[in-house]
């Protein structure tokens, strides 16, 4: 049975017993009160008789109206009391009350006789009526004694009735106490069995759960609310056990995460503290949150001096006062001038000195708050090295110019003695041909050939040195015309050779026409020279576009080619990839070509394999204009 039903039943029984007790108590209380009142009235009768005697005597003694009046009233009240008692006693005692009524009436008659026998209200009693009055009063006293005797018997009866009722009442009270006691014991047993025992069992189970045995279950099985509670306990322990397992997994995961975090923190701390670059972390208001030792050294502050300060403390004017605005603008527009990029600027040291720094700022969000980290590098040494390099380059450039001027001057000055040697050799050959032996003529011819060669060399050297100082005359022109002119000149020189030339009829390019003509002459001349051993020299000149959409001009031949391993020497002055006795040349031509292309801010390169010809490519900067 459900506890609620049991409780209802139980309360119903208690209510019935209480109601029964109340009714019985009420009945006995009423009966007791009734009998006590009756007994009290009997006592009043005795008291009244005593008072009537006093009043009788007082009346006889004083003769005033007041005791008479009191006597009459008191007698009337006693009659009324007796009447009330008559209505309360049983048939057995009715005769007694009737007798009393008669006697009270007789007493009244006696008192009236005393009254009549008094001549008038007043004192003292006359001698004539004194005996009769005394006799009447004596009779009244005797009658009063009889009345009191009868009243006493009535009193004994009412006392006995009262005792009996009190005894019964006491027994009923004892019985009620016994029933209530039994009921109390029943309540205790019921409470123990239905409530306390299961509750203790549940408490024991709860303690087991508290001790950590979440998998344990209670075997309490009652068909009431406590049984349902026990079932709920079991479900609860299942749930807790499941949650505990989940919690354990989560805890392990958290421990791992924590360890990883600790490692990351350790790494971060190591990096942060050992980084050669200064690191300053600020919040979204620009307040410094942390600085690493490098930053402390860089700005000559301690971290305690910097943390909590606005980062503007490290920024010289005018940026100092605009720093907060930079942050505000960034927060509003998310457009940053320096975030995500490295910039070079100046920092402000504690001693007020400005120091060149390289700053890279990145944004990060931690726990929903925005922070900025600045990685600051001291670039004062770098700047100094850069300036030194610029100065060195300038000095080198000056030296080069001086050297080129010197080379030009030397080349120019060498021509004059060379012309003397060649002129006098020619005079000797022409004017003294007959006097000279063939051996001497041969020597003179060799002298002239040598001077001629030297003259070419000087010319090329002059050209190369001039090239470095050339001022470009940029224009757009048709390269095909230049190619045609160069080929025609070469075909004149090499009439015995079969030369097949393929080139596009119109190749429009932009550059210094004179210098580009030198480039084409050198390249085509080389192609002709290094394909001399071929029966038919095949030269192809064309134009294409590379990946950067730049125009690429190429000159391809079927000559001896070269080994690509030596290509680094290809454009250096006086470097030759073939022996002089195989192919003549000064070793300056490709160096000159390289200079011209570089003057045009273009590139030149070659592709080749030995005996498979070579292809030279070059580009020109289209923005030269």
């Amino acid at each position, binding site marked *: 049975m459900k506890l*609620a039903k049991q409780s209802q039943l139980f309360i*119903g029984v208690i*209510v019935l017993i209480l109601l029964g007790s*109340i009714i019985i108590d009420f009945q006995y209380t009423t009966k007791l009160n009734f009998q006590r009142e009756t007994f009290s009235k009997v006592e009043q009768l005795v008291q009244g008789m005593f008072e009537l005697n006093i009043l009788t005597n007082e009346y006889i003694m004083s003769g*005033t109206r007041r005791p008479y009046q009191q006597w009459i009233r*008191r007698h009337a009240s006693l009659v009324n009391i007796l009447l009330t008692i008559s209505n309360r006693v049983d048939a057995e005692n009715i005769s007694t009350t009737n007798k009393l009524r008669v006697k009270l009436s007789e007493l009244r008659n006696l008192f009236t006789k005393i009254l009549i026998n008094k001549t008038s209200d007043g004192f003292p009693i006359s001698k004539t009526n004194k005996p009769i009055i005394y006799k009447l009063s004596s009779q009244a006293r005797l009658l009063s004694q009889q009345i009191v005797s009868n009243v006493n018997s009535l009193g004994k009866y009412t006392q006995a009735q009262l005792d009996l009722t009190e005894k019964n009442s006491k027994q009923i009270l004892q019985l009620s106490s016994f029933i209530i006691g039994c009921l109390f014991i029943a309540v205790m047993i019921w409470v123990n069995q239905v409530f306390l025992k299961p509750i203790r069992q549940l408490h024991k189970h709860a303690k087991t759960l508290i001790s950590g045995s979440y998998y344990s279950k209670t075997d309490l099985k009652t068909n009431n609310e406590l049984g349902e509670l026990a079932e709920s306990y079991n479900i609860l322990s299942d749930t807790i056990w499941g949650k505990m397992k989940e919690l354990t997994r989560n805890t392990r995961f958290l421990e791992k995460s924590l360890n990883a975090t600790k490692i990351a923190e350790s790494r971060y701390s190591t990096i942060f503290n050992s980084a050669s670059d200064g690191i300053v972390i600020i919040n979204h208001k620009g307040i410094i949150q942390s600085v690493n030792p490098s930053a402390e050294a860089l700005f000559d502050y301690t971290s305690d001096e910097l943390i909590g300060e606005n980062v503007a403390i490290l920024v010289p004017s005018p940026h100092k006062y605009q720093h907060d605005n930079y942050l505000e603008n960034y927060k509003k527009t998310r457009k940053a001038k320096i975030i995500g990029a490295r910039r070079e600027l100046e920092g402000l040291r504690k001693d007020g000195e400005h120091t060149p720094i390289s700053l890279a700022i990145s944004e990060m969000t931690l726990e929903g708050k925005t922070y900025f980290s600045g990685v600051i590098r001291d670039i004062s040494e770098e700047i100094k090295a850069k300036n030194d390099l610029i100065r060195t380059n300038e000095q080198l450039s000056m030296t080069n110019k001086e050297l080129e001027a010197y080379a030009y001057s030397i080349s120019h000055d060498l021509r004059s003695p060379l012309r003397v040697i060649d002129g006098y050799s020619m005079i000797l050959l022409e004017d003294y041909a007959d006097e000279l032996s063939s051996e001497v003529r041969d020597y003179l011819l060799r002298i002239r050939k040598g001077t001629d060669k030297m003259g070419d060399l000087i010319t090329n050297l002059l050209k190369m040195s001039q090239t470095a100082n050339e001022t470009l005359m940029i224009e757009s022109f048709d390269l095909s015309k230049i190619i045609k002119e160069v080929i025609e000149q070469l075909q004149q020189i090499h009439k015995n050779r079969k030369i097949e030339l393929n080139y596009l009829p119109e190749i429009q390019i932009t550059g210094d026409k004179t210098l580009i003509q030198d480039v084409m002459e050198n390249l085509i001349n080389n192609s002709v020279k290094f394909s001399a051993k071929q029966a038919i020299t095949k030269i192809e000149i064309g134009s294409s576009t590379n990946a950067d959409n730049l125009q690429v001009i190429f000159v391809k031949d079927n000559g001896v080619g070269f080994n690509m391993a030596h290509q680094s020497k290809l454009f250096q002055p006086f470097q030759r990839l073939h022996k002089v006795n195989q192919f003549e040349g000064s070793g300056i031509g490709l160096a000159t070509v390289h200079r011209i292309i570089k003057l045009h801010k273009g590139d030149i390169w070659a592709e080749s394999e030995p005996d498979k010809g070579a292809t030279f490519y070059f580009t020109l900067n289209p923005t030269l204009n």
Partner: protein
Amino acid sequence: MTKQLSILALLLSITCACSDQRASNNKTMANITLAAEMSLLPSTVWVAEKLELFKKHNVNLTIREFDSGRNALETMLKDDSINIATVAQTPVVFNSFKEEPYVIVATMAYSLDDIKVLARKDRGIKSPKDLKGKKIGATKRSTGHYFLEGFLEHYGYNLSDVDLHDVNAATLPEKLQSGELDAITSWEPHIHNTEKIMGNKALTLLLSPTAFRKDFYFTVKKDYANYASDAIEQFLAALIDAEKYIKENPLESQKIAASRINADIEIVKQIWDSFTFEITLEQSILVGLEDEALWAIKLSKNKIALPNYLNFINITPLKSVKPNGVNIIH
């Protein structure tokens, strides 16, 4: 379950309510003006006033102070604004011959040895018999006068055998001291004051050979007793509480009374036990009134009928609030 518990609680409360037989006090506020003599006799009034017992019983009491109970009673009979007056037995008797405009509703106190005779030893007075022919001071028509006559009669002679001087009670001590009088008959605090100024060695104290009871009453006009029975009941209920307090706390009560009448606390302590402060109506007061009335009739030498003092007593209010305090046969 809750419903069942509620029923159980209801039953228990009904049971408790049944067992509690005290009636709730729903009486309305009663405005009463009391004419009181400034003496220890109305001590129940002083205590009830101090302890705010009148307020407890819904009585708004106004006290008008008088030097004697006689003045208090006579002012009440003339002044409609006064509802209750404190008064001793003698003024009641002397005011009872004309008509019956007032009733006694309770005795506020009584004394058994309050009236005494005090005589100068140097005048040769050592016993009651030595009073014969001496100049005795007493306030005529007062309890002292009544007492002296009974006192002398007990020893075989009467007032004509002494030289009776009618003297105001307050001046009796100084007249005895000055030698103008040989003896005086009076009551407290005059007896004590006389002993104080003359010393016990110079005086002979003569006590009543039989108990001489002197009652002091609360009197109200008859019409007021008829229409304001509830108010009188509330007034008496407060005094019954004060009576209980006085029995349980005599020293505190003495202080309250002494402070209220501006009397020396030492004197109050000495005379306090002469009085019994009980709110009652005893059969004896009828006899006492009648005896003193007979003396008063004899004194007046006119033919006056003895009043029926039952008509001067209203037992209803006291019977309502203190049934066992009413012992008048009725």
